[in-house]
């Protein structure tokens, strides 16, 4: 599709720059802007200093249900829904604003941890975008925890009577693998 006005194009470029800085891949950029693939690739190289990653986007709903990803993606989705209801933000603006707020929360969660994992946030922008589409397509939904009343992401087809969230009922081996991996790498 051809971009008509120059102002419109400038706005789209601005959006693309912001998205790339937050970690977007070409598929997301292409779906949200009318800029050509070549220009987006160029822009990506200029900002990141490397070619955009190739290959498919993550497509599994299972990732959102494992322990640590579930906590982080629930946090993101709650922020997104909060902004949707209270600030009237939807679409790409809602995604950008809520992802920025998630990054802040992630930062303070990591800082409190004795063994900070990495600089890479648990939930990437692409995964956050995928999550919103999964929820829109009714593959995933949120369920209120019967203990803390917080909303957490669950599979639509699982049974959720007396649902306990991953933080009220922490699995025994939760989070151990990543820490061990970190030690192994350090050794």
């Amino acid at each position, binding site marked *: 599709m051809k971009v008509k006005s120059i102002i419109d194009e400038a706005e789209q470029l601005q959006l693309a720059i912001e998205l790339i800085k937050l970690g977007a891949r070409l598929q997301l950029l292409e779906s949200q802007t009318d800029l050509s693939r070549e220009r987006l690739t160029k822009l990506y190289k200029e900002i990141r200093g490397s070619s955009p990653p190739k290959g498919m986007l993550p497509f599994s709903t299972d990732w959102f249900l494992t322990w640590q990803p579930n*906590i*982080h993606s*629930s*946090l993101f989705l*709650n*922020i997104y*829904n*909060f*902004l949707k*209801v*209270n*600030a*009237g*933000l939807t679409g790409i*603006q809602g995604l950008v*604003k*809520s992802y*920025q*707020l998630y990054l802040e*929360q992630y930062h*303070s*969660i*990591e800082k*409190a*941890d*004795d063994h900070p994992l990495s600089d890479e946030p648990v939930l990437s922008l692409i995964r956050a975008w995928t999550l919103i589409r999964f929820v829109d397509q009714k593959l995933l939904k949120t369920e209120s925890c019967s*203990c*803390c*009343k*917080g*909303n*957490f992401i669950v599979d639509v087809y699982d049974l959720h009577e007396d649902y306990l969230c991953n*933080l*009220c009922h*922490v699995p025994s081996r939760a989070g151990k693998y990543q820490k061990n991996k970190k030690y192994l790498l350090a050794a």
Partner: protein
Amino acid sequence: MEIVNKFQETILDEIRDANLNYLMLAQQMIKADKAHAIFRLGVNSDIADLIGSLSNSQLIKLASANMMLTRFRFDDSVMLGMLTSNHKGQSQAIAHSSILMACQPAQAIA
């Protein structure tokens, strides 16, 4: 007869200080980025607009009320006990409280 003693006077002063701090910070946040401010303050967009549009003299007038203008955001004692208990790590407690905060409805003008 002394109506307000020294101790009470100090407390009232502190409340006014806290109110002024709160309002100024809130206004700054709303002007910088409204959507982020709405999330951080836990208010809806009507209240955000209202605070954002206060003039300096209005702000000072509002702050000099001798009642706290802010309210405690956790109103569930079970939840609060869970968050402050030492059963889990600090990072989990932060994640949990962030999720619960984001689940709560925003304060709105009735």
